[in-house]
């Protein structure tokens, strides 16, 4: 109690000195106050501009930010807002060593709380749609990995689809559980035990991961969950949890212990967009932490076969499903026909992949450097984006910039140019997002 009072008083002094931060229109903003002593950094981060806690601020109305400029046009502001919005896609990229071959179990909470309607249409339905998108993206980015799906419902864990590398099975299975009603209590221990069982036989060269979507605030377990956590740690299974309601201490502990002390893998969603972002974050391979590396005696070398494709006029059976198909792939080890890749040959147990599958993961290992924003200046060298030829807005002189009366507007002035650190070419924000999200190649460097 005392503590919070003190903080309040202190911040009050701060307000008189930093008058610039107080916006006349009452827009709530967070500003950094150098005068504040960083007593409790967490508390300060939560404070709003009026000095109280964020729920004491004036209500932040989106239409207050958007102001017309002198000519009466909203265009400058709108483009600025759009760019700020797009910037959030840019993530930190440094070339870590990552576990490219992954075996993951997706655990979905289907207890009673998932029928809440705080996410449209209800939590369970939104989770399933997001999970389907996740499955598609996962196999797109990690073609040689495997995935299994487990459901927590009625106090027990049920297997929805086996661990396999075929995305269609998983999507079908997810669609079929749409019809189930979420009931009962969630049980973390049962889910983890089942996931452990599924991951027991994974080969040593692949990473073992569990991704859990947890909506409840409690768990009803048959035994001591800490023993389960210990066995998870022993088997080097890494757990990532996405909470839908609020932070739960046991989840935090699980994530921290299984990920060698890394706290960032447990997150609670703020809104639907954030939910999707967190889920799609799990698509990128996890970085191998240093402490894990020390424990290992070395990396694994995987024996793999690269089959040739054949096409036939007369259909023949495939060895994996006994289906009649025209053409397929011939395993170089035992010369049997399989229908699709990547897979493990059913006859000789050789992993069969195409070099294109490996190529899909290259961009994780050789990530593209982030583009830097070109600072505001009077004139620029470039008039058009290098790769898509959109026009850039003109430069603005110093006087024009300081004339803009509204601080809100000032924040949104940008040069709209982003520069590649290697080839120094300018790109627009759309190209920037495209290059970093989809292409992973800088057009200017060409290499």
């Amino acid at each position, binding site marked *: 109690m005392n503590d919070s009072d003190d903080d309040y008083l202190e911040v009050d002094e701060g307000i008189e000195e930093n008058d610039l931060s107080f916006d006349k229109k009452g827009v709530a903003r967070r500003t950094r106050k150098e005068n504040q002593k960083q007593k409790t950094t967490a508390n300060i981060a939560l404070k709003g501009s009026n000095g109280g806690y964020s729920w004491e601020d004036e209500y932040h109305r989106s239409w207050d930010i958007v102001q017309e400029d002198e000519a009466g046009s909203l265009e400058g502001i709108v483009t600025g807002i759009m760019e700020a919005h797009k910037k959030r896609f840019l993530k930190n990229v440094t070339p870590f060593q990552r576990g490219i071959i992954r075996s993951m179990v997706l655990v979905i909470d289907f207890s009673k709380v998932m029928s809440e309607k705080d996410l449209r249409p209800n939590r369970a339905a939104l989770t399933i749609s997001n999970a389907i998108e996740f499955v598609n993206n996962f196999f797109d980015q990690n073609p040689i990995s495997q995935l299994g799906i487990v459901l927590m419902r009625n106090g027990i864990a049920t297997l929805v689809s086996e661990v396999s590398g075929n995305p269609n099975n998983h999507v079908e299975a997810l669609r079929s559980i749409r019809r189930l009603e979420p009931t009962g209590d969630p049980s973390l221990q049962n889910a983890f035990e089942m996931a452990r069982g599924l991951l027991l036989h994974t080969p040593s060269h692949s990473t073992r991961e569990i991704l859990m979507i947890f909506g409840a605030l409690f768990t009803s377990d048959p035994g001591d969950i800490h023993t389960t956590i210990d066995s998870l740690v022993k088997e080097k299974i890494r757990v990532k949890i996405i909470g839908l309601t609020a932070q739960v201490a046991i989840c935090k502990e699980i994530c921290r212990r299984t990920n060698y002390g890394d706290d960032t893998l447990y997150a609670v969603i703020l809104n639907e967009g954030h939910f999707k972002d967190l889920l799609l974050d799990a698509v990128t391979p996890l970085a191998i932490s240093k402490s894990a590396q020390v424990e290992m005696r070395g990396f694994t070398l*995987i024996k793999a076969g*690269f089959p040739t494709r054949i096409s036939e006029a007369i259909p023949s059976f495939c060895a994996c499903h006994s289906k009649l198909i025209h053409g397929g792939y011939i395993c170089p080890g035992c010369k049997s026909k399989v229908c699709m890749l990547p897979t493990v040959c059913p006859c000789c147990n050789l992993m069969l992949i195409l070099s294109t599958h490996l190529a899909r993961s290259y961009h994780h290992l050789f990530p593209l450097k982030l583009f830097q924003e070109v600072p505001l200046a009077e004139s620029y060298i470039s008039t058009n984006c290098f790769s898509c030829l959109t026009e850039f807005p003109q430069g603005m002189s110093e006087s024009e910039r300081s004339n803009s009366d509204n601080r809100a507007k000032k924040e949104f002035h940008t040069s709209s140019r982003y520069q590649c650190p290697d080839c120094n070419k300018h790109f627009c924000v759309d*190209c920037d997002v495209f290059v970093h999200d989809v292409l992973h*190649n800088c057009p200017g460097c060409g290499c």
Partner: protein
Amino acid sequence: MDAIADRAFQEKQHNVSQDETPSLLAVVIDTNPLEWTKLKGVICLKELCKSVLVLLNAHLSLNSGNRVAVLTSSSLNSGPKFLYPDPNDKTYEKRESLLSSDIHRQFKFVDQKIIQELQILLDNEPLNPENQELKGSIAGAMSMALSYINRLTNIEPESTGNTLRAKMLVISISDDSTQQYVPFMNCIFSAQKMKVSIDVCKMGPDSSFLQQASDVTNGVYMLIKNVHGLIQYLTTALFIDPSLRPIMVLPTNSDLDFRASCFVTNKVIDIGYVCSVCLCIFSIIPRNNVCPTCQSKFDDAVVKKLRQKPIVIPLQKKKKLEDGVQRT
């Protein structure tokens, strides 16, 4: 009783719709001067340009909303460049969208612009090529084309209300370069995601990268032996509109060689070993159990198991006894 959500009236089924969405053709021309000298007797850049211009005119004549873009890949002076549309001529771009019904004029305009820009490009080439490095690559030009396509298909239609389909034609004369493998693959995967089909017109040596590119994106790969028929190839096999692709049989061979080549010995291999860190492929287990590319040490136990050759148990003589029981 019908459900409320069902329509009360059935509507006639339209017959096979003739899809008239306009399309964008992006042509990437390989202008690597070193490679062109190799093809000296066979074909020269001028001939190729003539054929390409006819192709562009044909594409524009298909539909009044069709657009084109032409890029060159590399030169000694600068990297990949847009020949058309020209970034410096802003007035043109706006006019194009309003006056696209102007057929001949548009042809003339486009053709003239491209020839002009190409001339400028060639004029700027330095005269002594020995000390210059080649700047730019096919993968770079393809990336530029893809971001241009991305802009026109995803971002602009919200304002024009028109959907645009896109396809890319790569005219290449050079061999594959292993340096380009990773960016090339990135281009192919993003083209696949954007549903842009890549057609390849290849002269000179065969290229497995480009074959894979056209295969993954549902495109056409043609290795041209007889260059005098270039126009014909360009306007028939390599000209299939994106809206026609679902019903047409594409003229490619399906027996592609997907096998990888070893990073160390450069042999083509069926069965090999893959490093789990850097994903490079070897045909033999490297010495010292260290990966040559990423210098990561391999686990000894695993390597030992891999090195193990299968053990052949020697045949043991079977003694036949009178009572018929075999004893080894």
